[in-house]
């Protein structure tokens, strides 16, 4: 009973977060930057930040994760980090030779007042950025928002600092990926290609964080959105932003700088969110939906019908990041399950609004909370008071699942103790199918485990 101290009585806490359902901005920025081809993320702060982010991403992906750091010392913190960053930029271009350096800030550099816009401009003015190379930045103070905010800020930085408008439109659609796995990005590209729509997807961590065993350590793996693609995004017909928190800010930036209109959608997790994505993409690209995709959809609906009796009314607790939780909640409702407790450490009112819209009619008893005070301790307390049938969340859910003896599905970030997320998507109809399979396996394995001998059934 690792969480034996969790008390049933829910008391409003004033200052304290116990077992957080979020982490800080810079890791999101680092992850986003890895989705640009030939890009070396750079952490402008103490050495530990960079090391922790790389370790966490490595544990999640089981891949090498390359990133540099300004290695702040006491002097830098007194006199400002400009000298460190300028030196770092020079070192990185001369030794590691990336196409792009994507700098993000940390709580330390933000608090001492380093202005990344000014410092990166100075670096360019001083000729520290070689011809044909790029230096971009995003401000990611750790004391605001969460890792999701940091991801959004870096994606916005990528959009606004690369996109150019040539005045001639290109027959292509931008898809701005909300926080999702390399497998999901690969699936988005596959769906677009089956639909016959040319897209620019960014960021794109497929072939970066799911790289094959090659006998070499590729410092810059072959994947990632290219600079040419990013620059051309300013000429695209429109943008689809997948996720109102992690992707929409970049779409807004593109509209502002290059007048590319956009539409915000959910990350296509589950049936209806995928429907909306396919419809929006086919409309934006002016294509009809091919039979192949209709058949994919049909298979998902078929399974949902076949197994509806095992899903009905099952109470689910879930935690994670808002852009994933919203469509996941919708999918659970479509499966006739009851998402009763939902927690996200990421603040923002959009989450509350969307959840209210989704849940008010169908499961008004659902408790959800995000931002300050929304941590796993609270979720565990809720589960103790009103037990659930299933828990869905990142690896840290395993403590609650064990203590409460509840079936558990790993979903979200980070997943430190299982594989699969890098390779099998959660998005699209096939992703939906995978989720239904996981849910059913978890529930039915439990049913088998607990069944009395006479009720232990072969055919289910």
């Amino acid at each position, binding site marked *: 009973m690792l*969480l034996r*101290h969790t*008390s049933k009585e829910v008391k409003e806490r*004033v*200052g*304290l*977060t*116990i*077992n*957080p359902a979020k*982490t*800080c901005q*810079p890791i999101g920025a680092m992850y986003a930057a890895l989705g640009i081809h030939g890009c*070396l993320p750079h952490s402008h702060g*103490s*050495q*530990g*930040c*960079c*090391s*922790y982010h790389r*370790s966490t991403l*490595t*544990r999640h992906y*089981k*891949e*090498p994760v*390359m*990133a*540099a*750091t*300004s*290695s*702040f010392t*006491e002097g*830098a*913190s007194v006199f400002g980090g400009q000298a460190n*960053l300028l*030196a770092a930029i020079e*070192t990185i271009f001369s*030794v*590691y*030779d990336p196409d792009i350096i994507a700098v993000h800030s*940390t*709580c*330390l550099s933000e*608090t*001492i007042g380093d202005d990344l816009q000014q410092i990166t401009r100075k670096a360019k003015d001083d000729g520290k950025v070689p011809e044909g190379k790029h230096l971009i930045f995003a401000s990611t*103070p750790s*004391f*605001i928002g969460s890792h999701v905010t940091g991801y959004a800020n870096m994606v916005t930085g990528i959009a606004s600092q690369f996109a150019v408008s040539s005045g001639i439109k290109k027959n292509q659609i931008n898809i701005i990926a909300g926080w999702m796995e390399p497998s999901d990005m690969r699936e988005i590209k596959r769906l677009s290609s089956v639909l016959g729509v040319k897209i620019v997807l960014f960021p794109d961590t497929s072939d970066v964080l799911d790289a094959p*065993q*090659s*006998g*070499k*350590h*590729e*410092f810059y793996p072959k994947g990632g959105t290219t600079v040419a693609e990013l620059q051309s995004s300013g000429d695209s017909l429109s943008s689809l932003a997948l996720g109102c928190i992690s992707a929409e800010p970049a779409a807004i930036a593109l509209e502002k700088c290059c007048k590319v209109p956009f539409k915000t959608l959910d990350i296509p997790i589950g049936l209806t969110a995928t429907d909306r994505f396919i419809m929006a993409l086919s409309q934006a690209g002016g294509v009809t939906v091919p039979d192949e995709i209709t058949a994919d959809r049909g298979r998902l609906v078929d399974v949902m019908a076949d197994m509806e009796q095992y899903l009905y009314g099952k109470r689910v607790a879930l935690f994670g990041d808002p852009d994933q939780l919203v469509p996941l909640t919708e999918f659970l409702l479509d499966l006739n399950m009851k998402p009763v407790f939902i927690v996200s450490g990421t603040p923002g009112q959009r989450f509350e609004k969307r959840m209210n819209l989704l849940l008010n009619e169908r499961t008004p008893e659902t408790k959800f909370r995000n931002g*300050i005070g929304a941590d796993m301790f609270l979720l565990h307390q809720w589960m103790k008071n009103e037990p659930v049938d299933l828990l869905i969340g990142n690896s*840290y859910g395993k403590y609650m699942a064990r203590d409460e003896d509840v079936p558990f599905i790993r979903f979200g970030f980070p997943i430190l103790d299982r594989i699969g997320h890098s390779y099998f998507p959660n998005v699209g109809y096939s992703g939906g199918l995978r989720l239904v399979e996981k849910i059913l396996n978890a529930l039915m394995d439990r049913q088998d485990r607990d069944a009395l001998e006479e009720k232990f059934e072969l055919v289910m």
Partner: protein
Amino acid sequence: MDSIGILEGRQKQIFEKKSGATQADIACDTSSLSGSVSQRACVFCGSRVVLYPVADAIHLVHGPIGCAAYTWDIRGAVSSGPELHRLSFSTDLQEMDVIYGGEKKLYKSLIELIEQYKPKAAFIYSTCIVGLIGDDIEAVCKKVARETGIPVLPVHSEGFKGTKKDGYKAACHALMQLIGTGSTQDISKQSINILGEFNLAGEAWIIRQYYEKMGIEVVATLTGDGRIDAVRRAHGATLNVVQCSGSMTWLAKEMEEKYGIPYIRVSYFGIEDMSKSLYDVAVKFPERPEIMDAAKQIVSEEVKTLYPSLQKFKKALTGKKAAIYVGGAFKTFSLIKALRSIGMSVVLAGSQTGNKDDYARLKEMCDEGTVIVDDSNPVELSKFILEKGADLLIGGVKERPIAFKLGIGFCDHNHERKIPLAGFVGMYNFALEVYQSVMSPVWQFAPRKGGSL
């Protein structure tokens, strides 16, 4: 990658042992160059790893959420009882706290925590921005200690204020506040503290058992399976036995100065060093010759069963080459010996935080042609592994996937070891793990080994 060379300014931190070459000292104990892809961490990380295994204290991270989130239960330091150390507590500082200060939030968090968990003590870790916004943590801790009656100890671990080593020192400083506050009544004259052993995968239990079998009382393990009450009476021990040179030598020196307790440095990895660490302790208690007899008996019994069981591995591994890149240099010495005992040679040896003496000794120990590095990075590691034809890399979390991408075996000798590698049984486990990984059939499918379509 082939075009990426060695970072300018790093040449002095790399050394290749050649006969007749000038024996310049390796440069170390320096901070990393800005812009390097270093494998190192920060001051906070150092403090956190040292204090983390104290299982009946709360560990509250005062700062934005990240520092608490990234260090939540990632280190397998096991406890035989309470497990408060495996939870994550943070003041989750927000923008307003950065502007107006976080002292109130810290105070309230501490009160809430202590009420909820009834811990034996509390450690409060300062993170980078706490050092900047000027929170008087010391004062808050004193106030809470007064009100709750438990020790509330600030750990000055602002990330930028040095290297991981400074973090070790900050942690030891906090421990020093506790040591000396408990009763030393009934502590035997033949007693020790085990320092720098963090009970990863239960290693401290193994070591403790050996010493107890010898008739020695272990007063406290610092900090593996640690308990506040044991720490408080640690000054009653006769001898400090220090493993892991970087993290706890400072504490041993402080205890020597303040309480007159002498210390010795040991290592529990490999047959040779493990045996020596029992003998070296026994020697310190000449008044009880049966202690040395017991040590001899333990070693002879253990080696009698261990030695034959290693031969299978040795046969398979003879002639294979290893690369070592770990946190502290002291561990490297043992690993070189342990690897030699299973027929393997070391072609690359390095550490994140070794000092001058460490590297001097390393140079002496290594074979010709061995590359020695301080504060290395993935490019260098990959380069030397390929050039030297290593079959195994020993390292930590960030090094593992590099080894696997290159298509060579790996052994985690850091937080993420899943089985004990210390002690005699640990030597068997180590050999088994190395054997499993190096001899795995998977490498034959790697393109570099001709395994492509």
